[in-house]
């Protein structure tokens, strides 16, 4: 296939994508200060489920109202704020965490990462103390053994990842796979019913929660790709040239293993928004005073003839997705060059 001639300046599509993303970020950050006729979560009881109207008495609902009476335009801007401040950081965090853990699991597998034996006993002692198990004498025993082991292995501790003395192999692959399995096999609903039992999460906790739900997929993608990269000749060459495994992993293997993430990250964003709307569909999640594009899509269920409730957030989401994909394509082209 003939490589396309590289353009001297970015094309119109790239400018449009950048422009939309800039609009989104500015709308999201400035949303509380924009002069809107209606506040996002205020129901207008006289205008429930009204189609978009321009003109007429009183400030008009430019994009209509939803079955709860909330203004759709105000909801769009509030959703943009939530997207910029909550969902995007969650996606970034999930992608980062997934990439690192998946790449580590794929690179070192179950046998190649060796840790000093002292580490295991220290961790065990810490757990014993934190959970305040009975028989506190065991705690002292563990601490003593840990000290001893640390002293003995101090000389070889720096090279513990190579040496086999007083080290044990951390089954990283099994741990990561087990964690992803645990998160994936508990039905979302059970997990969310359990979470709903507690107090509603703060924004920081919510970012962590969303990242926790989106992390396994990224980890598995990168793990699969890393298994393939690990078998490539250039990795063999790097190992033969004497580079430490950590450097090989960080500088050479990781960038290639993260290749599928560029296509995955925009999808992950769409996935998280879809998760929000599924939660709203199933009746779990934030209250109606917290408006997001996902929950706006979900209110379509209450009145299926109100097309404006789904079309406008849907278009916004579509443009965001296309823009992110365009950015990902541009980034991958630059990486390949």
């Amino acid at each position, binding site marked *: *296939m003939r*490589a396309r001639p590289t353009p001297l300046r970015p094309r119109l599509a790239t400018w449009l994508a950048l422009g939309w993303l800039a609009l989104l970020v500015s709308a999201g950050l400035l949303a509380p200060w924009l002069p809107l006729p209606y506040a996002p979560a205020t129901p207008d009881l006289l205008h429930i489920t009204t189609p978009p109207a321009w003109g007429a008495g009183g400030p008009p609902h430019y994009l209509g109202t939803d079955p709860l009476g909330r203004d759709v335009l105000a909801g769009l801007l509030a959703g943009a704020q939530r997207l910029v401040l909550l969902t995007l950081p969650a996606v970034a965090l999930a992608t980062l965490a997934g990439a690192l853990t998946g790449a580590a699991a794929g690179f070192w*597998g*179950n*046998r190649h990462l060796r840790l000093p034996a002292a580490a295991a006993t220290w961790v065990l002692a810490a757990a014993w103390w934190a959970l*305040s*198990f*009975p028989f506190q004498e065991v705690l002292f025993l563990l601490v003593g053994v840990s000290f001893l082991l640390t002293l003995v292995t101090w000389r070889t501790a720096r090279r513990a990842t190579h040496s086999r003395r007083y080290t044990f192999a951390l089954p990283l*692959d*099994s741990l990561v*796979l*087990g964690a992803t*399995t*645990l998160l*994936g*096999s*508990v*039905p979302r*609903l*059970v997990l969310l*019913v*359990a979470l709903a*039992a507690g107090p509603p999460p703060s924004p920081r906790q919510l970012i962590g929660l969303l990242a926790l739900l989106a992390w396994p*997929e990224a980890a*598995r*993608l990168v*793990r*699969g*790709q890393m*298994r*393939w990269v690990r*078998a490539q000749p250039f990795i063999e060459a790097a190992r033969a040239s004497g580079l430490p495994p950590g450097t090989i992993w960080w500088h050479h293997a990781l960038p290639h293993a993260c*290749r*599928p993430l560029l*296509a*995955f990250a925009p*999808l992950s964003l*769409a*996935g998280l*928004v*879809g998760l929000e*709307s*599924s939660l709203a*569909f*199933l009746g779990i999640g934030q209250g109606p005073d917290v408006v997001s594009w*996902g929950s706006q*899509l*979900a209110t*379509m*269920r209450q009145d*299926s003839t109100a097309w404006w409730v789904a079309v406008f957030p*849907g278009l916004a*989401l*579509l443009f965001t*997705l*296309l823009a992110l*994909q365009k950015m990902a*394509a541009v980034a*991958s082209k630059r990486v*390949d060059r």
Partner: protein
Amino acid sequence: MLRWLLGRLARAAGAAWLTASLVFIGSRLLPGGPDQLALADASDLSRPVAGTRPAATQQAARLAVRNRLGLAQPIFYVTRTAGQWQWHGTANQYHRWAKAALHGDLGYSYRDGQPVATLLVHALRYTLPLAASAAGLAVGLALALGLYLARATGSVWQRLVANLLNCLQITPLFLLALGLLLLFANPEFLNLLPAAGQAPGAASHGQLAAYWLGRLALPLLSLVLAVLPELTLPLAAGLRQEATSGYATTARAKGLTTRQMLRHHALPNAVIPLLTTLTDLLPTLVAGTVIVEVLFALPGSGRLLAEAAAAHDYPLVVGGVLVTATARLLGLLLADVLYFLVDPRLRPTA
């Protein structure tokens, strides 16, 4: 290879057991429970609870429910109360459940007293064919569309297909299903397929088969459309990226058409993310189709587990989690086997 397979299967069984155990213990630690839901609402004036000590009466009723359901015993061998650990021996709920489960008895549902295994099998009879055919159809379509999009001829149709896939990506599943329902099962528009309702009473096998085919067409279509973008778009991107590599140029120079080059040479290298995503879909065969089942009124396992979770029907939830965890672990196993089949260099790790 066989030893590796057996080792992985054993580990998978252990991990599924661990997951189910964690859900078992976790569900019983949640506040509220089936005893609270089983009792009628005291503000329901049509069923007044007359009496001089209503609080004591309700407390006694709740205790009776817990005793009947076996929830009055301690949860695990050890419990921690007020900072102290207490040993309970084998007289605890977990031991009873584990012993029964190892004999194949997953317990009885709290709501209707039927064996959990029977309920799950009945429900899976509807979900498995639906989800399996959706997965198969989606993979086939994804491969075809991915190869089509990777050819990058820049035609209008390609752009249309890519944009359509993007639109499908952002549409949540229930909106898709609702849209299909309103389009194809609506007397106002096109009344093509039975969305819900009666099967023809005493009908022949052919009629019954035709009815169920019609009934499952819309749910199948919504599932396939929901899953298609996340299979196709990364594959197309990966193929396009592979097409710029050295061996692809050599293949073209050799005289192969783009299509042949993509299918025979680029596809095996770019298919690994597709395999990962595909095997992620396996647990949804059991529990992920709840939205489609609610909208199209199919008595499948997704809906069963969702209702069980909402009603705190613990045996059914734990049984469902066991089956889902097993499905997911088998999916992971399948993924590793498929990686090896696609690229023999990817020897499976122990």
